[in-house]
C-alpha cells in the first residue's frame, strides 16, 4: 500500500483505526463464503463524515473501496476482489432513536440485526426480517443485500421495512433517500439502493419500521417420509389461502446435521420436515392451525408437533437457524447456494439438484424457504482435496442454471455478489447490463466502488479461473 494512501486514511479516521499489518489484513480476506482476496488496508470510520472522508480519499487516489458489515455475507459481497480498502462499519453501532409511537428506530449501519428486536421488545415491537445470521449480521449489510429470512414470507424483506436512510454515495456525496414517513414521494431511490449490494454507496443511518409482536404464535413441525410429500404440502397450504409467517423445509441430511450439532429434537431419520409458523389474533391462528394440520395430514405427514410456548418454539427454530453452520459437523466445507424457482417447480428442481450433486460426487443438504420457492442447496466438500473447490463451483453453476431455466432467479436473499456476477448474462442482455452500469454511474461508481460485484466486469477481479470453469460447465449463452 502506498504511504500516501495510509496517510490519507489516518488523517480521516485517526491512526488507531487503520489496519495495515499483513496478519491483521488476513482475516478480512473473506466473508461467509468461498471467495478470498486480501485488502491493502481496513478502515473503521466512526461517523458519516469519516465515511465520506474515506470514500473521497480513496476516489482521489483511485483506490477501490469495499464496504463490510459483520462479514457474514454469502455471495462474496464484502470480499475486496481488487484489493484496495475495506471500509468496515464496526464502529458505527449506535442506536440513535426508538420511537414507539411512530414504530420506527433509527440506527447506524453496524448495529446487529438482533439488536433491533431486542431494543424494540420493551415496546411490544420487533424488527421483522430475520436472516439466519441475525445474531451477527448488521443492518447495513441487510440493506446492501436486501436480506430476507424465514419470517419474510408474510411480512416481506428488508426493503419492506426500511423507510429511509442517509447514505454516502460512491462519489462521496451525503444524501438522504426515502423519507421518515411510510411512502416515498417521487422515484423510489431508497428502493433502488436497498439490494444494490454496496455498489451505489454505504448507508450511514437507517430508519427501520418496527411491527407489533403478534398476540399468538404457533409453530408446527410436520414430519414426512420424503421431500415430495413435504413439497406437495407446501403447495396445499398456500393453495388453502394461508400465508404463514414462515414455511421452511429441511431434508434428511440437514436434519441429521442440525440434530447432531444443536440437539433441538428433530427426527434425524425423517425424509423431510416442514416448519410452519402461524401468528396473529388468537382465534384466527387457531383456525389456521387446524387448516395447516389438515393439509399436512392429507399429504402424508407421519407426525405433527405443535409448539406454543416461547421456549419450545425457540428450540424448533434453533435447529433451523443453525442448520447451515451445523453442516460443519458432517463435512469440512459446504458451498451454500441461493436460488429461486416457482413453487410449482420445487419438486422437479430438487430432483435435478440431487442429480447434479451425485454426478459430481458431492452430497447435497437442502434447507429452504419453501413458502416462497427460495432454495438453499448445500454442496458438501473438502477444500483440502485437490480441485474440489473448482468442481464444487462448477456444480453450483449448473444448479443455478437449472433455477434460471425453471423460470426462477439467481438469488433469493444472498445477493449476486462476486459469486454469481458472471451468471447475470443468463437473465439479462448486454444492453440491460449496460443500463444497470449507467444507474451505478449516476451514484458515481465507475467500477471502483465494491468492484466486481453484481455486474460482470471482465478481467482484473482476483481469481477468476475457477469462475471461468464454472461458467463453461453451465453454458455461457445469454438468456434473453
Amino acid at each position, binding site marked *: 500500500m502506498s504511504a500516501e494512501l495510509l496517510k490519507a486514511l489516518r488523517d480521516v479516521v485517526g491512526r488507531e483505526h487503520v489496519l495495515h*499489518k*499483513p496478519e491483521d489484513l488476513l*482475516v478480512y480476506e473473506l466473508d*461467509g463464503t468461498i471467495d478470498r482476496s486480501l485488502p491493502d488496508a481496513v478502515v473503521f470510520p466512526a461517523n458519516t463524515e469519516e465515511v465520506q472522508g474515506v470514500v473521497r480519499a480513496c476516489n482521489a487516489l483511485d483506490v477501490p473501496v469495499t464496504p463490510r458489515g*459483520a*462479514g457474514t455475507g454469502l455471495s462474496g459481497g464484502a470480499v475486496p476482489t481488487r484489493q484496495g480498502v475495506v471500509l468496515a462499519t464496526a464502529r458505527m453501532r449506535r442506536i440513535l432513536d426508538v420511537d414507539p409511537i411512530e414504530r420506527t428506530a433509527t440506527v447506524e449501519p453496524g448495529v446487529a440485526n438482533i439488536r433491533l428486536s431486542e431494543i424494540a421488545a420493551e415496546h411490544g415491537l420487533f424488527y421483522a426480517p430475520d436472516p439466519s445470521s441475525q445474531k451477527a449480521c448488521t443492518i447495513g449489510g441487510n440493506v446492501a443485500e436486501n436480506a430476507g429470512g424465514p419470517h419474510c414470507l408474510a411480512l416481506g424483506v428488508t426493503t419492506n421495512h426500511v423507510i429511509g436512510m442517509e447514505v454516502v454515495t460512491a462519489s462521496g456525496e451525503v444524501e438522504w433517500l426515502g423519507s421518515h414517513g411510510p411512502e416515498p414521494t417521487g422515484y423510489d431511490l431508497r428502493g433502488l439502493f436497498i439490494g444494490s449490494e454496496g455498489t451505489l454507496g454505504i448507508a450511514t443511518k437507517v430508519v427501520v419500521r418496527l411491527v407489533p409482536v403478534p398476540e399468538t404464535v404457533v409453530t408446527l413441525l410436520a414430519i414426512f417420509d420424503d421431500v415430495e410429500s413435504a413439497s406437495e404440502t407446501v403447495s396445499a397450504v398456500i393453495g388453502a389461502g394461508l400465508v404463514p409467517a414462515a414455511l421452511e423445509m429441511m431434508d434428511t441430511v440437514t436434519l441429521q446435521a442440525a440434530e447432531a450439532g444443536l440437539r433441538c429434537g428433530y427426527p434425524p431419520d425423517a425424509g423431510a420436515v416442514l416448519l410452519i409458523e402461524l401468528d396473529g389474533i388468537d382465534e384466527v391462528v387457531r383456525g389456521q392451525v387446524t387448516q395447516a394440520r389438515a393439509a399436512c395430514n392429507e399429504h402424508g405427514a407421519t407426525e405433527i408437533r405443535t409448539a406454543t410456548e416461547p421456549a419450545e418454539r425457540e428450540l424448533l427454530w434453533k435447529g433451523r437457524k443453525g442448520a447451515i453452520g451445523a453442516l*460443519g*459437523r458432517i463435512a*469440512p466445507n*459446504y458451498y451454500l447456494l441461493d436460488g429461486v424457482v416457482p413453487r410449482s417447480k420445487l419438486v422437479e428442481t430438487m430432483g435435478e439438484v440431487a442429480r447434479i450433486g451425485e454426478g459430481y460426487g458431492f452430497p447435497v443438504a437442502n434447507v429452504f424457504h419453501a413458502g416462497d420457492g427460495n432454495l438453499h442447496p448445500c454442496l458438501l466438500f473438502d477444500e483440502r482435496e485437490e480441485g474440489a473447490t473448482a468442481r464444487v463451483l462448477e456444480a453450483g453453476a449448473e444448479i443455478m442454471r437449472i433455477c434460471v431455466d425453471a423460470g426462477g432467479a439467481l438469488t433469493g436473499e444472498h445477493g449476486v455478489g462476486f459469486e454469481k456476477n458472471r451468471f447475470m448474462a443468463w437473465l439479462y442482455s448486454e444492453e440491460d447490463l449496460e443500463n444497470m452500469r449507467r444507474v451505478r454511474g449516476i451514484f458515481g461508481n465507475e467500477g471502483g466502488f465494491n468492484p466486481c460485484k453484481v455486474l460482470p466486469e471482465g478481467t482484473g477481479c482476483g481469481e477468476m479461473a475457477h469462475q471461468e470453469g464454472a461458467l463453461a460447465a453451465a453454458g455461457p449463452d445469454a438468456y434473453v
Partner: protein
Amino acid sequence: MTGWPLAEDAPDTADLAKCVHCGLCVNACPTYAITGLEVESPRGRIHLARAVAEDRIPLTEAVQGHWELCLQCRACEAVCPSGVPYGRIMERARAQLDAAPPSRGWERRLRRFALRNVIARRRVLAAMLAPVRWFARSPLRGLVRASGVLRLAGPLGRLEAQLGRPGRPFRPRDAAGAGDAALFTGCVMGELFGDVHRASVRVLERSGANVFAPRGQGCCGALSAHDGDLEQARRLARANIAAFEASGAETIVVNSAGCGAAMKEYGELLADDAEFAGRAEAVAAKVVDFSEYLAGRDLPPGRLPARVAYQDACHLAHAQGISAEPRALLEAVEGCELVETEGADMCCGAAGIYSLIQPGMSGELRARKAAQFRKHRPDVIVTANPGCQMQYEAAVREAGIEARVLHLAEALDEAGVVGSE
C-alpha cells in the same frame, strides 16, 4: 508444511477445518464487542491459526497478541453451529507461544513460574495468601483505601479492589470413603473462599447429600491449560484423578465453574496418555457442577427477600451449558426476585488471571457490568466462580451501589438460615 514451533501440542488440523467462517460467533465474543475488530474475534483468531498452520504467516508478535487478548470464555463455542472446539484450539495455540520468538517473554515466564510453583502448591499458596487474608480483614485496609495509594500500585491496586472479605481457609481433610459426594476444594478457592466451601457443604447436606472433602486433591490445572502450559495441566489432572479414584466418591461436586469445565474435559486433556486416558474419562464423568447436582435433589427452598441479579460464569454457561439450573434454584427461594440484566451471560473480564494480564480489556468488560448494576440496582449479585466474584466486588464499587456479591452456595445457604428462623 506447518508453521507451528511445538508440533506435538499444535492445534489439530481437523479442529481448525471445522470452522466454516460463517461469522455467527463474532457478536458473542466480548473482545469483538468491545473492539469491533475481526482479529479480536473467534473467527479471526481461528483464521490466523489456520494461516500459521499453513505457513502463510509466521507466528508474529501481533498474532500472539490477538490470541492473548482472548478471554477463553468460550461464548463463541456455545453459539457455534459447526461445533468448533475453540477452547481446545486456543489452549494449543497458546502452547506454541513459549516456543515462538519472544513477545513479552519475561512476563510469560514469570506467570508460568507463579502458576507452577505457587498456585499449584498448596503450602506455598497458603503462605503467600495468609498476609493477604489478614490485610483484607484488618482496619489497615480502610486507611489504605482512603489514602488513594493503591491507585499508584498498578496490578496490586486492581487486586485489592477485587478482594472481598476472605474467611478461614477450607482444605481437603477427609479420608477415603468418608462420604458419597466429594467436594472439590481447588487452589485459590480453598485459600480465599473457604466460606463458599463451608456454605456449599451446608447446602449440600441440607439437600440430603453425604459430603466429604477427600485428601490428595489439588489445583485442577485450568489456569495452566488456558495459559498454554498443557504439560503442567496434565500433571495436575493426573494427581486429581488418582486422588478421586482413591476417595471412592460417586460424584465430584465442583462449585467453581472454571474448575468444573476443566475437570469435565480431563478425558480430552489426557486422550494421548495410554495409562490415564480411560481413567480420566471415568473421573470426568463423575464431575458435576454444584447447581447441576442440586437440580436433581430435593432442597428445601428457604427464604431470601432480595432483588438478585444472577451473572453467568462463562465456564458454567458456555463450556458446561448450565444456565437454567442456578436461576431455577434462586427462583425457588421464597422472597427472591430474580433481576435479568443485559449481558448477564457475557464475560465480566475476570477470566482466571486475565484481569491481571490484560487490565485494559478486563476493565472495559467490568465497566459494562457496573453500568448494568447501576441501572438495575440489585441487592445481591450471585455468580458461580471465584474469579468472577472478585471482579464483581470491584464492579459494585465502581457502580457505587450497596450490593453484596455472593456465590450461589452462599446465597442458598443464607436462604436456608433465614428460612429456618
